[in-house]
């Protein structure tokens, strides 16, 4: 036997070795670390300044006034707590800037800083007020507000895992909300309204699928166009059709909370998780379902393969286009349910562009959640928390302009995200049309 290179070495096949280079901090990583530290530091300084305008006791009510089991209202000394939070932030900032934090600790520091900002800020806002800050309402409201975000994020995750970028979640929401309102008004039936919403979501998804998968249109541009289309069509129909007959066409029933026996009685947790509408339960179940579909089933394996390396899937006999079609349509179910939230899930009536950017927040949750259903849902909860907190704080009458109040939670989000999430990696073929 002749060998090509006449080289004889001990077999390399015994130990498949890797090219492991020493890892040091790259310039980009250093810049990210320093700017995270600086941002946390600035927020810490702001908190430190706020210590001087904090007076009295901050009270946090763990259960609302009507709960059967009354939990105590926690009283925190205002200035000291804000001061401690400020110090924690500054310590975390120092940790980031010094660069002495090993991997896991920097994550912990990010979490601590995020929590400290939130707590410090809430304490400052609630200190010296007559009304306590309603913790139970805040948490229950978080889950409620996050429901469409969770469903929208699941829609994004399923579609993008298969390689189709979905910027049109907003448009799918809007169409589904409209369909739910009309059908709900006409039939006065919640199941019928939900069904109509899902149908509308899937229909809009099929528009995305046709142009993205069949006609290979740039998916971001396509998504923007679909959003405009949805806004235009629903707006037009609303003006021409719904508005003049709003008693018949825009009076959908709304969902009532369905308390789950026994569990609903639990203090604090009960009202938060087990006294919600059917749509909220559906959203929570959907997270588990999507996780199982993606990571435990044949279909999920194929969806992920098609989103990572479509050629590889093709060569083992998987139809890339078919799997992508399926994924986009299945994703449409979730955006449809999410859209229903805005009408039958909450207020019952449709108004123009009533989804106000929730689809885009869901998209942000997809990316920050690294295209993972559970992480993305967690991010959606985080956004829900932020939105809910902003509205709670406005009722507390803080001395700061409300716009500022609305801003600070987002800063906390950025910090937490910067600390928690380092490298994000999209599915390799995300957004790339497949042609042979």
């Amino acid at each position, binding site marked *: 036997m002749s060998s090509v290179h006449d080289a004889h070495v001990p077999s390399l*096949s015994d130990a498949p070795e890797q090219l492991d280079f020493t*890892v040091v901090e790259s310039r980009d990583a250093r810049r990210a670390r320093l700017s995270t530290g600086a941002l946390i530091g600035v927020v810490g300084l702001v908190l430190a300044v706020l210590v001087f305008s904090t007076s009295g006791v901050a009270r946090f009510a763990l259960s609302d006034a009507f709960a059967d089991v009354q939990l105590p209202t926690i009283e925190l000394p205002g200035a000291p707590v804000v001061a401690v939070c400020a110090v924690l932030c500054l310590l975390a900032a120092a940790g980031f800037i010094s660069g002495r934090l090993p991997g896991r600790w920097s994550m912990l520091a990010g979490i601590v800083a995020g929590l400290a900002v939130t707590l410090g800020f809430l304490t400052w806002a609630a200190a010296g007020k007559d009304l306590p800050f309603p913790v139970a309402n805040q948490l229950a409201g978080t889950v409620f507000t996050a429901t469409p975000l969770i469903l929208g994020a699941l829609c994004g995750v399923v579609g993008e895992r298969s390689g189709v970028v979905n910027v049109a979640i907003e448009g799918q929401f809007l169409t589904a909300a409209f369909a739910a309102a009309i059908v709900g008004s006409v039939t006065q039936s919640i199941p019928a309204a939900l069904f109509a919403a899902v149908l509308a979501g899937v229909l809009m998804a099929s528009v995305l699928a046709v142009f993205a998968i069949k006609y290979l249109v740039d998916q971001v541009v396509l998504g923007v166009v679909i959003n405009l289309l949805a806004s235009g069509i629903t707006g037009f129909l609303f003006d021409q059709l719904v508005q003049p007959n709003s008693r018949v066409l825009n009076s959908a029933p709304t969902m009532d909370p369905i308390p789950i026996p026994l569990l609903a009685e639990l203090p604090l947790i009960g009202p938060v998780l087990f006294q919600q509408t059917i749509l909220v339960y559906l959203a929570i179940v959907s997270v588990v379902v999507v996780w199982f579909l993606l990571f435990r089933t*044949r279909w999920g*394996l194929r969806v992920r393969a098609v989103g990572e390396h479509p*050629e590889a899937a093709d060569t*083992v*006999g998987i139809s890339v286009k078919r799997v992508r079609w399926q994924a986009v349509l299945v994703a449409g179910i979730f955006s449809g349910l999410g859209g229903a939230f805005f009408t039958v899930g909450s207020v019952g009536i449709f108004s123009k562009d009533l989804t106000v950017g929730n689809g885009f927040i869901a998209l942000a949750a997809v990316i920050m959640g690294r295209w993972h259903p559970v992480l993305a849902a967690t991010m959606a909860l985080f956004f829900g928390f932020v939105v809910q907190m902003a509205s709670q704080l406005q009722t507390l009458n803080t001395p700061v302009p409300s716009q500022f109040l609305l801003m600070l939670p987002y800063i906390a989000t950025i910090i937490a995200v910067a600390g928690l999430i380092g490298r994000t990696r999209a599915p390799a073929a995300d957004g790339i049309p497949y042609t042979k």
Partner: protein
Amino acid sequence: MIRPVADEAEHGTGLQLKSITKRFGTFVANDAVDLDIRPGEIHCLLGENGAGKSTLMNVLYGLYQPDGGEIVIDGAVQHFANPKAAMAAGIGMVHQHFMLVEVFTVAENMILGREPGLVVDLKAGRATVRELSARYNLPVDPDAVVEDLPVGVQQRVEILKALANDAAYLILDEPTAVLTPQEIDELMVVLQRLRDEGKGIVFITHKLREVRAIADRITVLRRGRVVGRAEPGTSENELAQLMVGRAVDLTVSKQHAEPGPVRLEVENLTVTNSAGAVVVDGISFEVAGGEILCVAGVQGNGQSELADALLGNLPVLSGSVRLDGHDLTDGTPKRAIIAGMGFVPEDRQHDGFIGSFTIAENLVLNRFDRPPFAKGAALDLEAINGNALRLRDEFDIRTPEVQNLGSSLSGGNAQKVVLARELSRELAVLVASQPTRGVDVGAIEFLHKRIVAERDKGTAVMLVSTELEEVEALADRVLVMYRGRVVGIVGPDTPRDVLGMMMAGCSYDEAVALAAAAPTEGGDR
């Protein structure tokens, strides 16, 4: 030794491609190609890039539908609507660019497309991997994530995947392009074993040396047609002539180097990639005017990053780069260009060339912003065009019109454009990475001559190459890199097996000792 096309015998058994024709628009990729593959043979399909080898095999694997001709297996005509049908008929394929999902484990890749149930059962997948590993003696960890595996092992997974449904015929498309010399040897052993078990193997390549080492029979394709069949004993020159269609000079004739003063000095250079891995680790070397320093190493050992850092395209962590006494450390590409650096990037399509620009524009990409190609803020189109016409003739760029888009050029001609652009001005140093990758034999000859000519003008040349042939042909000195470090700097006449072992991380002394301990069998040189 070369037989005419016509006398290929008809066989009742085995796999036959009869008169396969495949067109893409007006371009005929395969023109009535006949090929027969018998069980228990290694059949080499030899041809230049673009000769139609991969197209033919994609037709056989069901990825393309032929416009004419038929596929016959054991006497029965087959129609493969998709790869699944081809697999079912016993054909397995190992693609040049691996068809593995990088973020999946080996087991997940193995079951993809043939999952037994609706719910994924990874236990079964692992068992399949272990069983196949044992049966074909190709060890691989079923739970390893593919992207963490070295390329040779990834290829092993591809082979196992192809064998998983009892393939009788195995197609390997340019399987050695990404492997180290040692991995290539191992692959050869594996293929020979599979052949002895009775598999029919198609080995696609454009490397003559490999063909001679492993082929039982050889079929040569040129411009979509079978131009000849040859026995394994055929000489490299004969094969090359058949492949290119004219006599090719495979050896580069060059004078002994006469190194002048040192021009490029690199000291203790350390570079990290964006993930922070130290990919170039304290490297020092010098290149003198009038010599070619080859940086040899297996792909991914820091050579690309070294070249990028010299250009100023990657941040430098520590160390220094000096060109003719000017400090270029951590500079910008523009500074490097002005200081006289010519740069041929490794990935021509991505970094060296803009397909949607005209050929004339591509030829001035490094200098379009100053005279003679710019008048103030405006481009001097006449000068740009004149420059293009001159370079087209000088560098034999085969295009009817320099105003054609760059994407209309073949790989070899595109590379000529890149080299022409870089060499058409006075250079202090030429840094060229893989200048002949994906380039056909005829163009390689030309590119090599130009690089040697540039050296003889007194330019310092640093050439990054993973091809030992190229290193041997061009180097005046060889710097071997392994895991970001310099293993050693050796002379050009260092034996191939010693170089190979140094590329796997052995020091020069160790490599020499190992080479002496293992008796060579005369080899093919």
